[in-house]
């Protein structure tokens, strides 16, 4: 196909300009701030060059938050992949009520995050939460447990809550990928005697490559960015166990009042995510089939 440089750019430029303005100008402002030692936003500070960058790498808080973010991404990836595939593969079967389920599974994704928080705070409460009382009734627990009381429990609970929110949406995307797979491939493989695990590994999975590539990239970035669910439930606690990088940035800016340090963290974080994206795209991008 011949190139349509001018027309092509004409079509993409409104969006490209919109997004660049709203991202690049703020990033520039943040970069400028990171070279000063401004504490409270709106006050002035001294130019200190790259001092902020040097200092941050020595901070245990930064390391701790980076690790938390890493665990957060991995935990969410595992959990959401599991949930999303379970949902997608289940809905792909024929069963009574399939339509209703397919239409409404998305419920947890369409409600405001604030509502997600309300639901799970009450469900997981140790005094009046339904989960504790059911677990006690069926004998899995002896007494009520606090789902956010220890670092590990809080972290896992948050991953589950976040996955609860996102998995159904991912499932629908995967489902659309599944639907695009040629039925005949399954039939042919059956003739060859493949069982359904083999079908999954050799037909389903490879054919979802394109979908999985984008979900892998965008999903990772979006999970990384999750702020409100964590902030509204644990505020990063207990003992900073759920302080991921976005929370650390927010805290540094608005509870520690070190806006320049927060800006520095922001720039470093963006850089790391960009690096990740580039590597991910370079190594995983599927060949275009057109």
């Amino acid at each position, binding site marked *: 196909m011949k190139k349509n440089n001018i027309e092509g750019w004409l079509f993409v430029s409104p969006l490209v300009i919109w997004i660049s303005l709203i991202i690049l100008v703020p990033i520039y*402002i*943040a970069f400028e701030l990171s070279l000063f030692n401004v504490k409270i936003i709106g006050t002035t500070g001294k130019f200190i060059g790259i001092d902020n960058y040097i200092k941050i790498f020595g901070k245990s808080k930064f390391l701790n938050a980076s690790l938390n973010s890493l665990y957060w991404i991995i935990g969410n990836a595992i959990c959401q992949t599991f949930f999303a595939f379970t949902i997608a593969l289940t809905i792909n079967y024929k069963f009574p009520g399939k339509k209703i389920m397919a239409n409404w599974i998305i419920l947890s994704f369409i409600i405001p995050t604030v509502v997600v928080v309300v639901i799970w705070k009450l469900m997981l409460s140790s005094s009046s939460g339904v989960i504790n009382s059911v677990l006690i009734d069926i004998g899995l627990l002896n007494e009520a447990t606090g789902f956010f009381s220890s670092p590990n429990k809080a972290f896992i609970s948050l991953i589950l809550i976040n996955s609860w929110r996102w998995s159904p949406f991912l499932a629908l*995307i995967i489902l659309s990928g599944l639907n695009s797979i040629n039925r005949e491939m399954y039939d042919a493989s059956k003739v060859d005697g493949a069982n359904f695990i083999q079908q999954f590994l050799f037909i389903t999975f490879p054919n979802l490559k394109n979908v999985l590539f984008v979900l892998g990239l965008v999903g990772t970035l979006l999970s990384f960015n999750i702020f409100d669910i964590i902030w509204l439930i644990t505020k990063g606690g207990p003992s900073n166990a759920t302080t991921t990088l976005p929370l650390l940035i927010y805290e540094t800016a608005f509870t520690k009042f070190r806006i320049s340090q927060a800006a520095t963290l922001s720039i470093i974080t963006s850089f790391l995510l960009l690096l990740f994206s580039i590597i991910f795209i370079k190594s995983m991008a599927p060949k275009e089939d057109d």
Partner: protein
Amino acid sequence: MIKENNIKLLFLSVSLLLIILIFFFPFFWIITSSFKSPEEIIATSTTIIPRSFTLEHYNKILFNSDFFIYLKNSLIVSFSSMIISIILSVSAAYGLHKLKFYGNKFVEYSLLVTYAFPGVILLVPIYLLFAKVNLLNSYFALIIVNVLFATPFAVWMLKAFFKLIPNEIEEAAYIDGASRYIVISKIIIPLAAPGIASVAIFCFIISWTEYLFASILISGDHLKTLPVGLAGIVGQYQIDWGFLLSGAVLASLPVILLFVFIGKYFVSGLTEGAVK
């Protein structure tokens, strides 16, 4: 063969049960709880089937709070964000898909990489920027941000839908002398309509659920969106669970109602349209 079918059946029933428990039961519980008396909600002996029934929480929220103002704001912001997002992303997706141009791949990946800049990072700079251009406390401030969050993924989804339209149809139209504009408005958009509809709903949801920016960029009560309004009507020192639960239900209700009517298009548009 029989054995395999049994395994499938087992998988199906176990996963169905899990899905219903995990993804549907919470809604049942929250909705029923919002009609319980305050005593029953906080009682240490939790009830799954409610023992009491009251409308007091709904009364309070519907008639004593600014619920309808928040609702109006959320609708305005979400609809406008949706429409702008769709216009921008249909155009961009078409450009990316049909018009090979210099930098095509770069733009495509850059769009996805937009998500590499966490909202928290942009929060303060955007506040300062919007203050300079006098955009704080306006619907447009929220719309600008929502479009930013919705479009990158929307473009990717749309591109997949456009791919499904055979090139031949379009080329035939050009041979008949149709202009680019005619082709897009008379062929591409109608053919990709189910897909566009689901992407539109996606954009709507992204705006509907946004909290962080809405809470910072807006300070007047008359402009608050539902999530922010809901977070605010709860006092700092007390939790009125009944109030909060009925608020949660009401804040979700509009999107749920929307879904009653268009949900099946969203899902079928998304799944049968085959994102690939």
